């Protein structure tokens, strides 16, 4: 079986966010980069499914700046086999433009004999949280889709996919080829091995510069919400603080004295 997984490079912010001077991006000068945990699970699932099906390809795709090749290498290092880079100048593409470019890849791959039985996405991108690229891709390709997926089993020409619903878990039958947006918790991603890293270095990444379609929302500026920095009340140091903590629990009404 052939599986395509789409991942997005994002800065790995820590305890605080700092914006660039123009307020259009996170200041990432001192940050490392990563992908969403949802997407890490999509990568892991693709590797496992193709291993289990005994053949096929796993392709990882990203649309982003030159440096996003790092995230493709990370995915190759845990066992993906092909990588496609839609290179941009680094500006954020809106979800309509992103989806259109990804649809172009699925069609081009199909023309070259890589028919993707599954196209896997993260449920939402870590940074923009647009919640729509997977569904736009599915609609354009007229493929069945499901979002929020937290468990999946391939059964011949369909998958059984589970997700959390409002009244417990829902299980769906989804015929292949399909588009699934998955959530963290689907599996526990492996860490790359040293041989995996070495192998990843040797894979040739297919890079192209896509045409950008216009249409989606236009970002004007970012803002960090004013969080009143709480004046933290230090109750004490070490075990000696225990009586003060229990006093607090009593005063909050969380325990009966």
């Amino acid at each position, binding site marked *: 079986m052939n599986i395509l997984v789409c991942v997005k490079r994002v800065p790995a912010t820590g305890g605080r966010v700092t914006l660039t001077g123009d307020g259009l991006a996170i200041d990432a000068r001192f940050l490392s980069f990563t992908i969403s945990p949802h997407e890490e699970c999509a990568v892991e699932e693709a590797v496992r499914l193709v291993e289990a099906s005994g053949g096929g390809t796993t392709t990882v795709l990203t649309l982003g700046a030159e440096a996003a090749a790092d995230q493709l290498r990370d995915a190759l290092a845990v066992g993906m086999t092909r990588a496609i880079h839609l290179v941009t100048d680094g500006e954020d593409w809106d979800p309509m433009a992103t989806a259109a470019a990804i649809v172009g890849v699925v069609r081009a791959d199909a023309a070259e004999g890589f028919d993707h039985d599954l196209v896997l996405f993260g449920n939402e991108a870590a940074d923009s949280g647009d919640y729509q690229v997977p569904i736009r891709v599915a609609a*354009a390709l007229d493929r069945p889709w499901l979002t929020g997926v937290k468990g999946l089993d391939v059964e011949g020409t369909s998958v059984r996919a589970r997700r959390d619903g409002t009244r417990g878990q829902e299980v*769906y039958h989804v015929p292949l080829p399909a588009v699934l947006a998955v959530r963290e918790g689907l599996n526990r991603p492996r860490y790359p091995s040293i041989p995996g890293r070495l192998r990843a270095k040797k894979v040739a990444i297919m890079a192209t510069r896509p045409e950008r379609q216009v249409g989606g929302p236009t970002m004007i500026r970012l803002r960090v919400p004013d969080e009143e920095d709480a004046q933290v009340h230090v109750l004490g140091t070490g075990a000696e603080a225990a009586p003060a903590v229990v006093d607090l629990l009593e005063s909050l009404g969380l325990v009966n004295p």
Partner: protein
Amino acid sequence: MSGLGAGAVIVFVEHATGEPAPASLAALAVARGLADALGAPLEAVALGEGAVAAASALGAHGLGVVHVAHDDKGDAGRPFDTPALPGRLLAHLLVTNAPRALIAAATARGTETLAYAAALTNLPLAAACTQVSAADGEDPARALSVTRLRWGGSVLEEARLDGATVLLTVADGAGADGAVPAPPAGAPRIITLADEGGQPDTRVRLVERVASAAGGVSLAEARVVVGGGRGVGGPDAFGLLEELAALLGGTVGVSRVVTGAGWRPHSEQVGQTGTRISPDLYIACGISGAIQHIVGCRGARAILAINTDRDAPIMARATYAVVGDLHAVVPAIIAELRRRGATPGA
């Protein structure tokens, strides 16, 4: 293209068989604010079993027009257990009525439904908005300005949404300020949505519902959450946190480092890609306070941080703190609770 709903602001109302969902009513308040600002009519749409009852209930919220499609007997028996159908019906409504905006709550269902409607009609969708208004100095029939959540809410984005018809979802907690009072209640006009045309798309089928295991305090609703992070050091020491949680009638939550290491299941993860919690007290033990964790616990009334590092980011978000090794502090708290014979508060 004109007709009844032309230029209207339409809200997609989710309902539990007839009872409008609180999140949808919050989205309705935001939609009402927009409709008033634009001088546009406000309408609603409700789908599935109980849609007609939901429409009647919406009369009490001042809605004069509600579009419905339902699978009660007598209707076409549309398969509402396939995720594609609601989006197809809304896409049809978008095409026939050309509303100014289609708005839903940013729930999983609301989001997925609007995303599919937007995809089918090739219209823009802004997700997780906290504010929406006419754009400054622009034709309100062509451009709206929105504020929306990024990074799970740790960053806000101001954006312009161009187009004569646009879609947006309203983030949880939005719409509190500047709420517009609802006009007097009445019986709304109920309009049955025309069939979306063609064969219904039933490729994706709901085949089973598994009820969540009963018992235990749910993380999202717990009154006290005892959180553990990398500082806990391994799976075994979580026994301590469980013991403290039990004494307080609460439950355990964890950071992503903990689930990533396999010490605890992902269902316990608090944060951007885990669960959002809103307890009266969150006791964060050995957790640094990365923004992706904080967005999951900012709903807590108070945070007590237990951390060896006086300068950890969590300290800037916490109400109370104990500086020290959790392996000494937590057992001492448990011992003190036992000594005083404390029981969980009512």
